[in-house]
């Protein structure tokens, strides 16, 4: 992607240079050639329809090329490849926290393997932040209340700047870190240095600690929906809407359970807002995701690394 952005940039730069020097040349040549001392009497010319049409249509045409190229690139930025590996990130004043699916955690550092598509799924614990890695030409706002994603494909091992690009308060300029791109084996070795179990396992522990399993269970006494096989599949709500259970839906259902009630269930679940933080929500989310595959009978459509894209969807995923 980074190279494509640069090709596009050079195309834009060529256009820039052409038009800039065209205008400067026109102004300078006319200004010197028709200076008062050399050209004391101006010739009155009122305009030319042909010229007007010309300099309306030609720039319009060129700018449409710019638009189309830019839009295609942008579409790519917003559609991570299917087999991209996921890393979860939480922004908070003023640090970055990352959670790898394998359970490894880090602060203000992001270790990624070279040559793989990496998707970073992000949310914020307070204000809007922005995850920006200029070397990869990517950036995305990190918004409290929902997940957004940024993906990239590192091609060369090394250490790259990670910036917060959206002003977020006093130590905004201190909210910087490093993206460390490692060779694949080195990355695998690095992953093993953590010892808390995978993100899904951590989530399972929390799931039991919070007593979620007393209601969300796979038997007749369940007072909440069975979560196995839920992720990535359609859910029918009490008001008749059908929505897809994606990251944002699950997050919302943990923190604001009364927002969307699954058909056939009572609104009895208490909110966990204020009791668990975004990182713990991510653990739970990953446990619920992992349950999608454990269920042998459940319609498993998604592989672990190609879950629902937490794209730019707001709380109203699906239509009313």
């Amino acid at each position, binding site marked *: 992607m980074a190279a494509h952005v640069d090709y596009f940039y050079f195309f834009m730069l060529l256009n820039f240079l052409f038009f800039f020097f065209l205008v400067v040349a026109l102004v300078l040549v006319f200004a010197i050639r028709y200076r008062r001392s050399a050209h004391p009497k101006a010739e009155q010319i009122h305009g030319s329809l042909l010229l007007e049409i010309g300099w309306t249509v030609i720039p319009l045409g060129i700018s449409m090329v710019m638009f189309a190229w830019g839009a295609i690139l942008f579409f790519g930025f*917003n*559609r*991570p490849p*299917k087999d991209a590996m996921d890393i979860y990130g939480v922004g908070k004043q003023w640090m970055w926290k990352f959670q790898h699916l394998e359970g490894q955690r880090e602060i203000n550092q992001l270790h990624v393997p070279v040559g793989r598509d990496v998707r970073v799924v992000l949310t914020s614990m307070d204000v809007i932040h922005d995850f920006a890695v200029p070397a990869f030409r990517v950036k995305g706002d990190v918004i409290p209340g929902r997940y957004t994603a940024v993906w990239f494909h590192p091609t060369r091992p090394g250490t790259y700047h990670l910036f917060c690009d959206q002003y977020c308060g006093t130590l905004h300029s201190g909210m910087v870190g490093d993206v460390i791109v490692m060779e694949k084996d080195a990355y695998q070795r690095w992953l093993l240095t953590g010892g808390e179990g995978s993100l899904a396992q951590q989530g399972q522990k929390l799931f039991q600690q919070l007593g979620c399993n007393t209601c969300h269970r796979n038997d007749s006494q369940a007072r909440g929906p069975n979560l196995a096989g839920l992720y*990535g*599949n359609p859910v029918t709500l009490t008001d*008749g809407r059908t929505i*897809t259970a*994606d990251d*944002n839906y699950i997050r919302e259902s943990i923190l604001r359970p009364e927002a969307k009630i699954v058909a056939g269930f009572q609104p009895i679940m208490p909110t966990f807002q204020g009791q668990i933080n975004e990182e713990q929500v991510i653990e739970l989310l990953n446990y619920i995701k992992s349950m999608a595959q454990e269920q042998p009978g459940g319609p498993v*459509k*998604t592989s672990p690394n*190609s*879950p*629902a*894209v*937490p*794209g*730019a*969807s*707001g709380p*109203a*995923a*699906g*239509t009313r």
Partner: protein
Amino acid sequence: MSDHIVPVKIYVAVFAILLICTFLTAGIAFVDLTVNIAGHAVNFNPAVALLIAIFKATLVILFFMHIKYSKWVTRTVVIAGVFWLCILLSLTMTDYLSRAFLTSPVH
């Protein structure tokens, strides 16, 4: 604005229509206007209420506010105001209506 004096009759007539519309809109609120269109239940209550409101507002603007008797410049000002309101609402909604589009599980 031209110096036209609108007869009282017209004011009273407009007033009567406005009152009737108000009763109508409050009454219709209790009637279920849900229609089944291609398998989707669509509730027309809000749309009807809004249409009545637009009709009422138009009457007020035309007669009470004398737009029917005024110059085109004034009318243009009114139309511009409504048009810009539509820009604000519709372009904001382009975002909210399409945010969910890329959320499908298959990419």
